[in-house]
């Protein structure tokens, strides 16, 4: 690195340290800022941060290697990453990637974790897992900012803007427009307005009464697992500790999920009010909103909502004038790691480390951030909790099923006329969602994201509820034109890429599974490979350390059961095909010896011609 750059880098780091503090737990936030400024984390920044924060340079480097959005070598001055979820692909993203690559004079295609960088350093093109814009894809991120509704014209314009070196602020504003696409409103989406009513009730009637309403409501977590919210708050409240923390999980990494994006856009006040009420119940003074890196564009908006609420006395010290009700929220950015949605990995990441799942027990409710009792809830959960405290537990109970009170917000994408956000009472059957969004000839629905379940038409009478089909909110639709193996390939690559690598079955099993799926897709598989996929999937489910590994093989196992023909029709033969092509491996030797006669070839794994 040249010296003047090193000086600039050191200056920037010094400034970041001065503004944002020297807590080692802020490492990731410093790294993200450095990356934004220099399109990588230069060595000088690694040295400066490791010296100032008292973490080893190896730990700093390990964090850079862990998070997909951080790099130790420069990408382009314009760093472009296409969203590579299956829904983006269904909307033609692959063709657009090729177009842009061609227009920029690059060659090849980017693979996951492997970007194309133009030699002049002007631009790089890579892939990101789902960026949460499935209802308005294909989408990409340029220097972290989301560009939606891509088409051939947009590719042309982007190529021109890059060639001319036009800074992002002067790109057409419409490129960055993100629509809410709310198609069906229910209990939660019906009314975005808030005037601190939930907080007022908390102050007037006390924390016990607020918790009692949450208990009465039967509210369960909306992030997927469905743990009873009141129980979580109570455990945390009663756990021994000196401090308590409230964390809003806005990582929204599950492919096909984008409802939290909409909630943070138009309902941020309610979400923050829910966090504040939770803090009042727990006696917490600090909270964090963990925002996925893909939603960087929401940061100024969220900061301004926090600022306004502080000014209105709804956040900060002596909230609504109440003695001892002090609570404030910091926003922490993620940097491209799906596992950081898992609550204990999220806390590791909040503490500036690699997002590796923690050993449990202890659970975050007793030992979370800074080893203190911590509540982690989904964005939608906090929103619902705010309303429950405002309007009472019975209000939520009035809708839904026995074990699933209230409503669920779905992110609908894929093959349908009206993709977007739909809110339904729990208990709504799948077919109703399909008819409301204008889905026709539906072959399959992937519910709750890549980690969720693949539904065939036989499942369409089943209901969305914790009793039957639980979901974090993703609802991806595939009609009869689609080859579901494309979905399987996409998800298998996703999980292999997103495994944190901590435990053996997920780390190795996920990669083996991806390779077998590719082998079958290439027409080189056999019945044996299909049974291997089942075997590996079962081991991952059974033996993995956390939810990622437990659910990662679902899509393979489900489709093997429900859509066996997507595999079968590609099998090269019934029994066994070696994954190693002996004849191809000999080609180098043939070239070296100048032989290419029959005797220099192996016709089959078993049959050597003489």
């Amino acid at each position, binding site marked *: 690195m040249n010296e003047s750059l090193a000086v600039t880098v050191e200056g920037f780091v010094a400034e970041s340290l001065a503004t944002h503090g020297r807590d080692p737990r802020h490492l990731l936030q410093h790294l993200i800022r450095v990356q934004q400024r220099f399109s990588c984390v230069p060595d000088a920044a690694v040295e400066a941060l490791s010296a100032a924060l008292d973490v*080893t*340079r*190896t*730990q700093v*480097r*390990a964090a850079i*290697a*862990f998070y997909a959005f951080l790099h130790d070598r420069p990408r382009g001055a314009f760093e472009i990453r296409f969203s590579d979820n299956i829904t983006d692909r269904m909307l033609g993203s692959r063709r657009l990637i090729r177009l842009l690559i061609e227009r920029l004079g690059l060659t090849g295609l980017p693979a996951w*974790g492997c970007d194309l960088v133009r030699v002049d350093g002007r631009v790089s093109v890579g892939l990101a897992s789902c960026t949460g814009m499935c209802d308005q894809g294909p989408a990409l991120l340029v220097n972290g900012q989301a560009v939606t509704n891509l088409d051939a014209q947009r590719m042309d314009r982007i190529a021109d803007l890059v060639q001319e070196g036009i800074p992002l602020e002067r790109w057409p504003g419409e490129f960055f427009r993100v629509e809410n696409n709310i198609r069906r409103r229910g209990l939660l989406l019906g009314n975005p307005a808030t005037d601190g009513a939930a907080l007022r009730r908390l102050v007037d009637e006390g924390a016990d009464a607020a918790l009692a309403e949450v208990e009465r409501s039967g509210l369960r977590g909306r992030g997927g697992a469905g743990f009873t919210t009141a129980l979580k708050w109570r455990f945390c409240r009663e756990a021994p500790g000196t401090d308590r923390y409230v964390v809003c999980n806005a990582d929204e990494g599950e492919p096909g999920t984008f409802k939290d994006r909409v909630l943070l856009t138009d309902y941020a006040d309610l979400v923050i009010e829910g966090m504040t009420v939770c803090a009042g119940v727990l006696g917490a003074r600090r909270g964090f909103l963990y925002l996925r890196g893909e939603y960087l564009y929401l940061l100024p908006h969220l900061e301004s909502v926090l600022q306004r609420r502080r000014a209105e006395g709804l956040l900060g010290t002596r909230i609504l004038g109440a003695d001892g009700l002090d609570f404030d929220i910091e926003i922490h950015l993620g940097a491209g*790691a799906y*596992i950081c949605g898992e609550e204990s990995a999220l806390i590791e990441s909040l503490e500036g480390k*690699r997002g590796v799942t923690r*050993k449990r*027990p202890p659970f975050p409710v007793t030992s979370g951030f800074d080893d203190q009792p911590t509540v982690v809830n989904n964005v939608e959960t906090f929103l619902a909790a705010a309303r429950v405290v405002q309007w009472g537990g019975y209000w939520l109970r009035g809708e839904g099923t026995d074990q699933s009170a209230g409503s669920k917000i779905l992110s609908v994408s894929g093959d349908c006329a009206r993709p977007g956000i739909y809110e339904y009472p729990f208990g709504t059957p799948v077919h109703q969602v399909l008819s409301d969004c204008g889905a026709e000839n539906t072959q399959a629905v992937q519910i709750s994201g890549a980690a969720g379940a693949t539904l065939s038409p036989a499942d369409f009478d089943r209901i969305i509820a914790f009793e039957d089909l639980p979901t974090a909110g993703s609802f991806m639709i595939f009609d009869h034109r689609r080859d579901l193996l494309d979905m399987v390939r996409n998800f298998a690559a996703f999980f*292999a*890429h*997103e*495994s*944190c*690598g*901590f*435990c*053996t*079955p997920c*780390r*190795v*099993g*996920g*990669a*083996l599974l991806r*390779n077998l799926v590719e082998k079958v897709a290439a027409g080189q598989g056999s019945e044996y490979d299909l049974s291997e996929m089942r*075997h*590996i999937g079962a*081991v991952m489910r*059974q*033996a*993995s*350390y956390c939810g990622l590994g437990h659910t990662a093989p679902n899509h393979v196992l489900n489709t093997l059961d429900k859509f066996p023909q997507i595999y079968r029709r590609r099998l090269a033969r019934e029994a066994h095909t070696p*994954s*190693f092509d002996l004849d191809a491996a000999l080609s180098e030797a043939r070239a070296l010896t100048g032989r290419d006669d029959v005797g220099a070839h192996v016709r089959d794994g078993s049959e050597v011609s003489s």
Partner: protein
Amino acid sequence: MSKTFKLDGREIPFETGQTIMDAALAAGVYIPHLCHNPELAPHGSCRVCLVDIGERQVSACTAAASEGMEVDSSSETIQATRRAILQMLFVEGNHVCPACEKSGACQLQAVAYYTGMLAPHFTHFFPRRPVDASHPDVVIDFNRCILCELCVRASRDHDGKRVFAISGRGLESHLVIDSPSGLLGDSCFAAADKAAHVCPTGAILPKGRGYETPIGERLYDREPISIVGDVRAHEEEVV
């Protein structure tokens, strides 16, 4: 009266706070393990110590023992899962057992024998991993590293040094060394460190003592791991 649970039908006494593994080790009952070492904080990453506690499978090294629980550690299903996990570890790295200096005294190999693993089974990844011989007393062969993090924990929690860390993620995860060059020789690592004596495979080896005990007469050549236990307890005999 002390509390007990059942492990493969045998009553095992335990104290509150003990894991299934702690209690089993104390009672002299073997549960296969790789990333566990009773002197260091439990980790739960290798998953070889998987046991069945009814509906669920848990890692014995991290799961707390509880009164009256019935633990199954030897059924064919459990052994088959362990076998698959070991087969995964074998194809992930590059393990050349017949030629390896640690052969016969390697816990990975011994646990594989114990679970009845006869072949690697899965397709090899054949990663390209270097050997680091820069240190005067110790060599690290990353090809044999199974990411158990025993050296990481020993260095950090026992030696107070933080020489090792894991970098990358997924299959790209790998062990790294904290020195300006990334080489062991430039780090503050010493042969007397605890971290030099905890590796369950042949990834961290002392220099200059190659093949002192002939293969065939080594620790696990003589007796199975279920009888003699971890290699670290026999260091003087085997290296």
